[in-house]
């Protein structure tokens, strides 16, 4: 049944995002062409500017729509009138979380690739690429120290952290929305309040923990390998634990505390 939920979730979201990707593609190609042509004189010189504005707007639209869609699909499809349809389907309640989460991750990744890819297409000149490479090298040097031995480990850790942060944040948004709907009015304000409340508490806890850790491991903190061996793994582990907690509480609310209007 998850497959069917995924299929319909993809349909419901693709109809908004695919056109935006096509618009971005159009402006990317146009911008690439006009920025590297030097033929616009007089009034015509406005053309590259206008196309660039369109290009930037299409990037902004993709970022905004991807984020809002992730939130709105969960809220609107599950907790407004559409919830009556979704929660009476013969599917396990957690499959609703799974389908929404998988599709949200998918579109986030696609949008990131689309935007970064398009920036490369527009901006790629030999000089720019060279500068980019050097920036990347400096970044690695900072992270891994003089030795090159552990670059792969750090790379994997970084990717894992990015991916888990994305999942963690989506699940936290889902949990906040699920908590917000417990209220009999002001469900959206409730969702925002839960999100801010949970993140604030976590921030305070994290600050305290880091402070405590820095006192205990005073000497090691100076060493750059500490990031790879301890900071990243601890972050990864806490992201996993938090995500699992968010997921189960959300499903518990689905099962026991639905409060559709």
């Amino acid at each position, binding site marked *: *049944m998850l497959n*069917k939920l995924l*299929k*319909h979730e993809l*349909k*419901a979201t693709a*109809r908004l995002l695919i056109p935006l990707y096509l618009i971005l593609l159009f402006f990317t190609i146009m911008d690439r062409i006009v920025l590297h042509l030097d033929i616009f004189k007089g009034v015509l010189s406005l053309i590259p500017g206008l196309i660039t504005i369109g290009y930037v707007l299409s990037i902004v639209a993709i970022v905004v729509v991807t984020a809002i869609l992730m939130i709105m699909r969960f809220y609107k*499809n599950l907790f407004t*009138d*559409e*919830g*009556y*349809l979704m*929660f*009476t*389907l*013969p*599917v*396990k309640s957690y499959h609703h979380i799974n389908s929404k989460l998988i599709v949200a991750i998918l579109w986030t990744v696609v949008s990131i690739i689309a935007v970064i890819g398009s920036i490369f297409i527009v901006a790629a000149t030999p000089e720019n690429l060279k500068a980019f490479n050097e920036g990347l090298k400096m970044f690695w040097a900072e992270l891994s120290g003089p030795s090159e031995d552990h670059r792969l480990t750090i790379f994997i850790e970084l990717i894992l952290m990015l991916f888990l942060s994305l999942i963690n944040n989506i699940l936290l948004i889902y949990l906040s929305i699920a908590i917000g709907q417990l209220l009999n009015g002001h469900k959206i304000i409730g969702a925002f309040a839960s999100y801010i409340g949970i993140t604030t508490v976590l921030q305070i806890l994290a600050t305290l923990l880091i402070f405590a850790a820095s006192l205990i491991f005073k000497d090691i903190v100076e060493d750059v390998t500490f990031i790879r061996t301890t900071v990243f793994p601890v972050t990864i582990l806490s992201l996993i634990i938090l995500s699992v907690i968010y997921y189960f509480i959300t499903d518990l609310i689905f*099962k*026991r*505390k*639905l409060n*559709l209007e």
Partner: protein
Amino acid sequence: MNTILECKSLTKNFSNLTALSNVNLALERGRIIGLLGPNGSGKTTLIKLINGLLVPNSGEILIDGKQPGTETKKIVSYLPEKTYLPEWMRVSQAIEFFSDFYEDFDQKKAYEMLERLHLDSKKRLKTLSKGTKEKIQLILVMSRKADLYCLDEPIGGVDPAARDYILNTIISNYNENATVIISTHLIADIENILDEVVFIKDGLLTLHTSVDDIRTKEGKSVDTLFREVFRC
């Protein structure tokens, strides 16, 4: 098993209000049952409990012997009082949605009914009026071959002509194994198709009897009895 729905001491509280209190009820298969009561009496709460949208505080609710869950959702066809189809969908997409998720959904039947009511399946739901959306939802719900139909205010928003067609649809679609629960306060309109009635008042089940009994023993129509019982 001839009992399709069984409630045992079913109680549901909301923060400061008892929506259903100690309801005991057993419904047989093959009946059309009117769930009648004034606004706020607990009709919708009972229907939501049947469909697993609410969880009881105490007591038990069993559909075909099972607690509400994935298995019961396969055999219960539910029409809420809401327009619950996503607005961006075309009617044909809503039909596809139903046939994807419900094994007992009969696409052919749905298209036949659409045609009978002169509804265009290519239209998007957001372009349709509220009454038309209600008709489409009812068509979807009645195109399933379910064991239990829960219709919450199915005729409230539609015109009298369509009302007749809908009631006919309900009668002609229900088979001897299926039971239909219709919650409404438009009693006069549906009285003729009902086999049994359940009266709910302030969360309490006050009467469960057959319509024939009301007519022969009390010598009244359901509508008259309702007006007497729930006199304000």
